[in-house]
C-alpha cells in the first residue's frame, strides 16, 4: 500500500468509527495494551519505515509503526542514535514509545523523549490529517502540539509520523563504586554539578554506577572505582526485576536530592527516579504502578483535569479513542 493510501485508510477507519460510535484502541505492536472488550483495534504496526533521514541535519522522520530496533539500527549505520535512550520491550514501536513518553537513563543529561521531538503528523478524532512542528531544531510557530502529545497514550490522536532530533553515537564507559544508598544519592548529585561528561548515574544492588562519554580524565580518584560493562543501563531500562509474592513495582519521580526512600530497589536517572518494591503504594506525590498492564496514575489536580478534558474534546470531540 502506498503511504498516502495507507494514511487515508486510517483516516477512513476513524471517520467510520465516528459514524458507528465505535470506540477505537490505538496500538503499535501491543507490547503493552490489551484489546479492551468495548474497543476495536486501530493498529498502526504496519505503517513502518524511514521517511527521510539526512545525518547532517541531525533529524530523522519515521513512520510511527517502525520498530525501535529497526530505527536504532538505521541510525547506527550513520554513527548516530536516539538521544533519549528509549527502553526496548521486544518489538515496541517508535509511536508507542512516544505515546508513552518513554525515556532512559540519559534523561538528566541529554533530555527526555519530548526534548527530541520536532514534529508530528497525525490524524485526529474526526479523521483529519494534520501536521504540527516540522523538521527544524528551532521552530516557535504555533503551539507546540507535537511535544504536548508526548505521553498522550493514544487518547487524543493517531500519530502517523514523527520527526526526531538525533545525536552522534557516543563512546561510553561505565564505572561503579560500592557504597550505601544515601551516600550514592549525595555523590551522584555532586558529580552532576561538575564538568565530567556524565551520561548516566544510578544506584543498584549496593553500587553507585556512573557512565561517562568521550574523552575524560582517568577515574582513579577513589580506590574502589572499577570500570565495568555498560549492560547495567539495559538492566535498569526497562527495569523488570523479580518481585517477591504480593509485591508490586512502583516508579517514583522525585527531586534528585530526595533522601533514600524505604524499599527502594534501584535509583535511576541521576537520582530523580526511584523504583520501589512494596505491597502498598508509597506515599509520594508522583507514583506510578509499574506492571505488565497500564495503570494510569491520575494524580492531576482538578484544574489540570479540566484542561486535559478540554483538550480531549478539541482533538477527539466524539471520544472515539479509548482513553485509559
Amino acid at each position, binding site marked *: 500500500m502506498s503511504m498516502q493510501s495507507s494514511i487515508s485508510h486510517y483516516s477512513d477507519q476513524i471517520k467510520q468509527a465516528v459514524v458507528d460510535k465505535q470506540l477505537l484502541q490505538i496500538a503499535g505492536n501491543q507490547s503493552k495494551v490489551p484489546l479492551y472488550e468495548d474497543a476495536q483495534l486501530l493498529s498502526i504496526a504496519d505503517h513502518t519505515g524511514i521517511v527521510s533521514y539526512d545525518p547532517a541535519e541531525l533529524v530523522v522522520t519515521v513512520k510511527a509503526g517502525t520498530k525501535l530496533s529497526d530505527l536504532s539500527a538505521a541510525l547506527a549505520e550513520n554513527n548516530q542514535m536516539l538521544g533519549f535512550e528509549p527502553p526496548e520491550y521486544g518489538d515496541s514501536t517508535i509511536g508507542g514509545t512516544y505515546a508513552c513518553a518513554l525515556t532512559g537513563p540519559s534523561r538528566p543529561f541529554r533530555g527526555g523523549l519530548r526534548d527530541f521531538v520536532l514534529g508530528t503528523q497525525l490524524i485526529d478524532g474526526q479523521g483529519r490529517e494534520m501536521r504540527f512542528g516540522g523538521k*527544524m531544531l528551532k521552530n516557535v510557530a504555533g*503551539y507546540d502540539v507535537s511535544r504536548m502529545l508526548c505521553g498522550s497514550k493514544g487518547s487524543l490522536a493517531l500519530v502517523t509520523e514523527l520527526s526526531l532530533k538525533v545525536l552522534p553515537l557516543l563512546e561510553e564507559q561505565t564505572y561503579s563504586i560500592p557504597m550505601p544508598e544515601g551516600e550514592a544519592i549525595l555523590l551522584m548529585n555532586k558529580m552532576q*554539578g561538575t564538568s565530567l561528561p556524565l551520561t548516566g548515574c544510578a544506584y543498584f544492588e549496593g553500587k553507585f554506577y556512573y557512565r561517562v562519554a568521550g574523552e*575524560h580524565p582517568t577515574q582513579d580518584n577513589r580506590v574502589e572505582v572499577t570500570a565495568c560493562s555498560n549492560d547495567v543501563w539495559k538492566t535498569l531500562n526497562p527495569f523488570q526485576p523479580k518481585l517477591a509474592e504480593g509485591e508490586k513495582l512502583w516508579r517514583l519521580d522525585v527531586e534528585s536530592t530526595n533522601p533514600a526512600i524505604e524499599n527502594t530497589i534501584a535509583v535511576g536517572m541521576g537520582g530523580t527516579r526511584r523504583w520501589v518494591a512494596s505491597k502498598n503504594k508509597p506515599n509520594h506525590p508522583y507514583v506510578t504502578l509499574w506492571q505488565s498492564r497500564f495503570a494510569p496514575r491520575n494524580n492531576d489536580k482538578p484544574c489540570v483535569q479540566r484542561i486535559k478534558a478540554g483538550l480531549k474534546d478539541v482533538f477527539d470531540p466524539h471520544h472515539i479513542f479509548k482513553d485509559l
Partner: protein
Amino acid sequence: MDVIQALEEALNKNCILSSEEACRPYECDGLSAYRQKPLAVALPEDVEQVKQVLRICKAHNTPVITRGSGTGLAGGTLPLENSVILGLSKLNKILQIDPLQRTAIVQPGVRNIQVSDAAAKYGLYYAPDPSSQVACSIGGNVAENSGGVHCLKYGLTVHNVTSLTVLDMDGEIIRFDEKDDGIDLLALLNGSEGLLGVIVEIKLKLIPKPEAAQLVMAAFNSVKACADAVTSVLKQGIVPAGLEMMDKFSIQAAEDFAKVGYPVEAAALLLCEVDGSHDQVKVDAQRVADILTQNGAYEIRVSQNEKERIELWQGRKNAFPAVGRYSPDYYCMDGTIPRSKLAYVLDEIDKLSEKYGLKVANVFHAGDGNLHPLILYDANKPGELEETEKFGQEILKLCVDVGGTITGEHGVGVEKLDSMCHQYPQAELEIFHGIKNVFDSSGLLNPGKAIPTLHRCAELGHMHVHNNQLPHPELERF
C-alpha cells in the same frame, strides 16, 4: 467604577499608569514599527496582586497583555486600545538556587543573565542565552521559547524549564511539572506567547559550566563551501556549542565596528565553538579545524585562550548594530530552513534583494538553520516600510517552501500572522484556537496574537470558504 479605578483601588496607586506619558514606554516592544497606547499599565508587586489584576480585568471584560521586558521582536506585547498591560518587571526575585540539585526557582521578571550570574559561584549556569539576555525576562523567554547561540547543543527554553506556576484569566493557580503524568502541558506553555496563562514562577535547570571552550574561525570563498563544511562537521559526530555563519556584508560591517581581525574579503565566515572537558575540547577543536580545512576553508584561526575566544565572538555578537549603522532602519527577519537548503535560500534572498532594491545582510545560526536576514530600509521614505514587510514575507514563504518554518526564535506576535496562514492549513489552526479556548475561554489573554483567525487566512486566499460559511462559527474571530 471603571477598570482603571478598580485597579487603583486594589493596588498601590503608583502601580497603575494611565497617563499618555507614563504609558508611552509600553506602546510597543522590540518591534517598534507597531505602536498603540494601552488603556493602562498595571505593575503588580507580588503574585497576589497579579491575581487581583486578572480578576478585575475579567470582571470588566478587559483584555490583558502580559509583558516581561518588552524586548520581543514580533509584537507579542503590542497593546490593544482597550487593554491593560500587565507588566511583571517588579516580580524580579530569584527565590532559590539549589546548587546540589542544580535548579533555580525564579519570578518571571528576573532577567535571563541574572540567573547565570547568581549560579556562577557554584560553577553552574542557565544555558539558553538569547542575545537579549541582559534585558529580557525569564517569563518572556518561556512565553517565546527563546533560544540563543548555544541551542544546538544545550537546547531552547523548553528544554531547560522543569516546572511552571501559571495564573489563568480567573486568577486561579495552575502548576505544571515535568514529573506530571500524561500529555506534556509543560511543553505547551513554552512558546505560548502569553495566550494561555500568566507565568508567575519558573523552575529552571542549571548545568555545570564547561571546563573549557575553544572557538574556531574559518573563512570561505563561497557560501556553498561554508554551508557544506558545516554539514561535514555535524556528520562527523561533533555537536558544537555554537555554530554561526555570516555573509560578506555582515563580515565587513562587523569588522568595521568591532575590529577583531575578521577576513573582510571572505564570502562567508564561520565561527564554531566546541566546549566540554579540557581533553575533549583539545581533540574536538583540532578535528573541527581539520574538517573545515578539508572543506575549503582558506584561513583558520583557533582561539588560544579565553581572551582571544571572547574577542573573536565580539564581531558576531555586535553584527546587528554594526549592520544598523549603514542604514536608518533595519528589519530583522527570523526563519528556519533545513541546512542543506542554505546556499539555495541565500541565492534566492539575493534575487529578492535586487527585486525590491533593498540591501540585505545575513547573519545566522548555521547549526540549527535559523536565518536572520536584516533588511535595510528607510522608514522616512514613503512606502519603504511596506516594501520591506513584503520582502520579509517572501523570505518566510521561501523558508516554508523549502521545508522550514516562519520563525525559529522570535515567535509570531502580531507580526507574521499572515505567514502563519501559509505554514498551517485550516484544521491545524482550528486545533490551535481550540487549545486557546480550553485555557482561556474568555479570550481576554493577549487576544489577536500568535494564531491568525480563520477569517484572516480566508481573506488572504489560502482557505476555501463555502457559501460564505466559515467552519466552526462558534469560535471567536477578531
